[in-house]
């Protein structure tokens, strides 16, 4: 797989150097090559249930909601008929979307083609993971959304801005946020985060 290069490739050492373990620490890493599928379907429709069956996970029903396992396959609500599935437990393969997309093209008798869309978006967004007691404080330097646990509980995910970069912010665990900017923004986002983490690195030192 040496031919692959992830969006934040080359910044791994910098991210590690910027990370601080323990209180008030915060760590940054990239989750590379996780399969991501873009799903367009109207919830409750026949195509939605076919997609859910093929995925093995139900689609979220409202803004902010995620379904599935944050450490394996899970699904993020993007818009009323748009979703993003992410599986952080494995690596993308060629034709990643094929099996689920095929559920929409099922031409067996009694099935038939249904509306909707499933496309491989594994390269579309980078996945950066910010973890630690100060992770929220780092994000609060650039994120307008209320990240207090009462307002943004574990499992919550929204599309918003961090600094000047549009991205999905997903609280996968209590002190862990996954950030999914478009891949072209990954290098800038890493720089931005490392800069915002500086304060916590130096407090410890």
């Amino acid at each position, binding site marked *: 797989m040496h031919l692959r290069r992830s969006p934040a490739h080359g910044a791994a050492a910098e991210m590690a150097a910027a990370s601080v373990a323990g209180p008030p620490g915060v760590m940054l890493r990239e989750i590379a090559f996780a399969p991501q599928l873009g799903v367009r379907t109207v919830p409750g429709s026949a195509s939605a249930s076919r997609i859910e069956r093929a995925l093995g996970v139900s689609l979220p029903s409202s803004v902010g909601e995620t379904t599935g396992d944050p450490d394996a396959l899970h699904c993020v609500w993007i818009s009323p008929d748009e979703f993003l599935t992410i599986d952080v437990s494995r690596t993308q393969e060629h034709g990643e979307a094929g099996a689920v997309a095929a559920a929409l093209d099922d031409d067996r008798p009694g099935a038939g*083609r249904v509306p909707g869309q499933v496309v491989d978006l*594994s390269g579309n967004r980078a996945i950066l993971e910010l973890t630690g007691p100060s992770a929220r404080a780092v994000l609060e330097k*650039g994120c307008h959304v209320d990240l*207090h646990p009462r307002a943004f509980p574990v499992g919550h995910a929204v599309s918003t801005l961090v600094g000047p970069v549009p991205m999905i912010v997903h609280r996968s665990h209590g002190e862990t946020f996954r950030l999914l900017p478009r891949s*072209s923004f990954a290098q800038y986002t890493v720089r931005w985060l490392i*800069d915002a983490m500086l*304060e916590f690195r130096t407090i410890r*030192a």
Partner: protein
Amino acid sequence: MTAGRVGPDCSPGHGIDRTAPITVTVDGRPMAAFAGDTVASAHIASGRLSCGPSLYLSRPRGIVAAGVEEPNALLTVDARTPGGPSESMLPATTVEAVEGLSARWLQGMGVLDPLGDDAYYDRKYVHTDVLIVGAGPAGIAAAREAAKTGARTVLVDEQSMPGGSLLSGRGETVDGVDAVAWARTALERLTGQPDFAYMHRTTAIGSYDANYVVAVERRAADVDTPAAPGVPRERVWHIRAKRVILATGAHERPLVFADNDRPGVMLAGAVRTYLNRYAVAAGKNIILATTDDSVYGLLEDLHSAGIAVPLVVDSRPEPSARARAALEATGARGAFGAAVVGTSAGADASTEVGTSEGVGTSADGQADAGDEGRVTAVSFAPVDEFGRPSGDVETAAADTLAVSGGHSPVLHLHTQRQGRVHWDESLAAFVPEAPVAGQAVVGSANGAVSLGVALEQGAHAGHSAAAETGARGPLVVPTASAVAPGPVRPLWLIAAPHGSAAPGSPDRDGGPGESDLGESAASDGRSGVGDSRDDRPGTSDDEDDDAAFAPERWSTHFVDLQRDQTVADVLRAIGAGMRSVEHIKRYTSISTAGDQGKTSSVNAMGVIASLLEDADPASVGTSTNRPPYTPVAFAALAGRRRGELYEPARVTNIHPWHVAHGAEFEDVGQWKRPRYFPRTDEDMDAAVLRECAAVRTTVGFQDVSTLGKIEIRGTDAPEFLNRIYTNGFAKLPVGRGRYGLMCGADGMLFDDGVTMRLAEDRFLMTTTTGGAAGVLDWLEEWHQTEWPHMDVFFTSVTEQWNTIAVAGPRSRDVVAKIAPDIDVSNEAFGFMEFREAQLSNGIPARICRISFSGELAFEVNVSAFYGLAAWELVAEAGEEFDITPYGTETMHVLRAEKGLVIIGQDTDGTVTPHDAGMGWAVSRLKDFIGKRSFQRADTVRPDRKHFVGVLPVDGVTRLDEGAQLIAAGTPVTPEAGPVPMIGHVTSSYVSAELGRPFGLALVENGFNRMGEIVQSPVDGTLVDVEITSSVFIDPEGKRRDG
């Protein structure tokens, strides 16, 4: 002990740490100070009040206030760390004294540090249930009640320590304990709570819709010593609150009389703050002047500190109970129904006061020249109901005059939200009419006149605000004295005493005198001018009366100290026809300086109302405050958005190769795209000529990953595309692509690109780099709003794919090498077809035959992870053909040689497909967006501006992009102007292929001007230009297939 510092027996010194001595330097003069001092308090402690002279008139000035409202004492504080800022225009009353600080007095106007400011500034977003602004007694009471319910509570306060107005007093109690101790204890108890934050040194500067408040935090007293990298010098907080409580206090107003600007004339509250918070005596012999009961606490405190107060001049005809008690206790003389009418300063007087009281001399007894112009004597007189001196003027020696013209609630954050205010006659102040929705105003900001009332308002507001967010707790109201003060008798304008326009300032006598109201306005024995002047009894010959009532001469009655604006200036504005305070402020510049009129705004209204004989300041308007409440450094607002973090740079997976190979980059939207790849010593022209030649003769490759890509699926997708594109897509065979044009409803070109049909119901659309997001929105908008019944979905896959263009006669050889599994012959792989392939290194790819240069060309699409590997494979495979990387500039030249339009460069939203010579791509059979606009009379005109080629006739001059084109022989002299223009150059390059410069242009009636010679200016000279076809090379399209 320095001259002005008093001992612990004389002052509680709430704000200073007497065990932490430090030294600060102003204008090279070292001053002893304590931690907790401001530069202003340290300066007063050193025995001086004088600061820099006034902005325009260069009059001697002194410290007036003790807080952000200070109009005079402005500093430039020197940079203290490498890269740190030298900050200007800082009121000395807000600059905390820290060891080694060095500052210089300013004359009203500073400069931004020309060396820049490399300190670290950032911002933070915070959400809260309850935000309280101000940590005085009302704010703390509110915070206590809100926080104890568990509601998320944020308390911001501009001061370095809690207590607000309590720090200025002494002896007050809350719930039976010392009030300052109560404030500290209350906050200490709250600070452990998880959802409570007390942010000191944090000024709420702006209040915006939906309870969005912006506040600026200064990290520490010693902001210039970096705590550590990444710890900001200042931080801008963006606070969103469900409820906001404003406990912002009040600012005291000065009084307007002759020579009211001398050093030594201070706000009474400030004198009290210096005494009790900083243990500093402003003077040794202090006269008080007031319009209400507020100065009597100061009288008592000064008396206890052993500082002489010979006299209180009180505008009210009778002493109030409070006044009587304080005067009796201290033995000071009270002059009631009286006002200060002037001050004097003089060498003789200075000696007089100095020798008896020690003021005006430094600690070692030497004469101190630093307080030039300081008050040495105060004149006062009885005043009538109009504020006119009505009896004998008396003069008393004093080194300080502490004045109180009343208090103005600090309502900036309230009025920024369009909160209304009304004039409260009994308080002589603007108070909130009603709070803004979701807000409360408490304490003296809300007109509370006693500590007890302020605490009660605060506690109730905190309790209610939390309850409104769903958090409840028992209400506890702290108790304190709630004795109502005596009445107020405001004085807006104190006339100069009879026969003396300005005591002590004979040079000012006569004033500006330009006012056209001068003669008629000042004779009837009243201080009014204006609309009724023609009805006045006799413009008298009586010179004495003129002298007594000549406000046009009152050019030392200062209204705005920072702007050096006086009653005479206000009168001049009125004489010019102004009546509204909003107009007069702009005419005179009153309230527009750095202090934004904190001490002058209401007084200006009072002066205007007096001059117009109106009832009260509200009759001439109210003023609306705009953010920021206090000045903010640009660097703080910029935060981290500077340098490499200024703006995101979007890069493709291939970007590192471009960097490693010396690319010069061009910003296209947020993308960094290689513009050209210069070799040693090449400039852009040379590099582009080389790159163009390579593509035309052998092969080049370009990273075109930034082009927008949208995958489309649906049974109605073909019909949908038919409606979006001007040309037909429904019959496009699977496996092929087609170039399409998009127009807005107005029929004007707005995007173009190639769309490929992946399956019966699946398409892959490409868009321009800059248009990608807009096109996706456009598709969604039409689908969601007009045609929701259509079965079609869109997903942006721009970043899912990296795309490599391989162009030139040898491109087929290169692609054959990298994709050995597919037959790339022209017969097997036709133009506008695509193939799924596996590259020789195993990468899955989709290869298309698309050309944007007219040459044989391919585009290799791979999953973005593989972009760099695929690029390197192409480079390696092309090595034997001397493959050349090329950038956007070369791409632009190549497409221009072929006459291919770039939407947004050669078009500007007024160009139809027909204008661009692409009528062939407009269907006459089907309907599509924009079609009906092509029947408009204007779009069917045959002489619209058309897209044509332009060739400089001399064959060597490159035209300027954007340059105008004119008919040959058109005179261009100014006398003959205006010059009729027939079009402009949209693109201009030097062509390696043509061996000459060429260009593209939009020209009126251009299609019918072929061969015509027109002209265009180059470096000030008109150059002959031939109109040609826009296609310069290979019009037959032979090169396309190799």
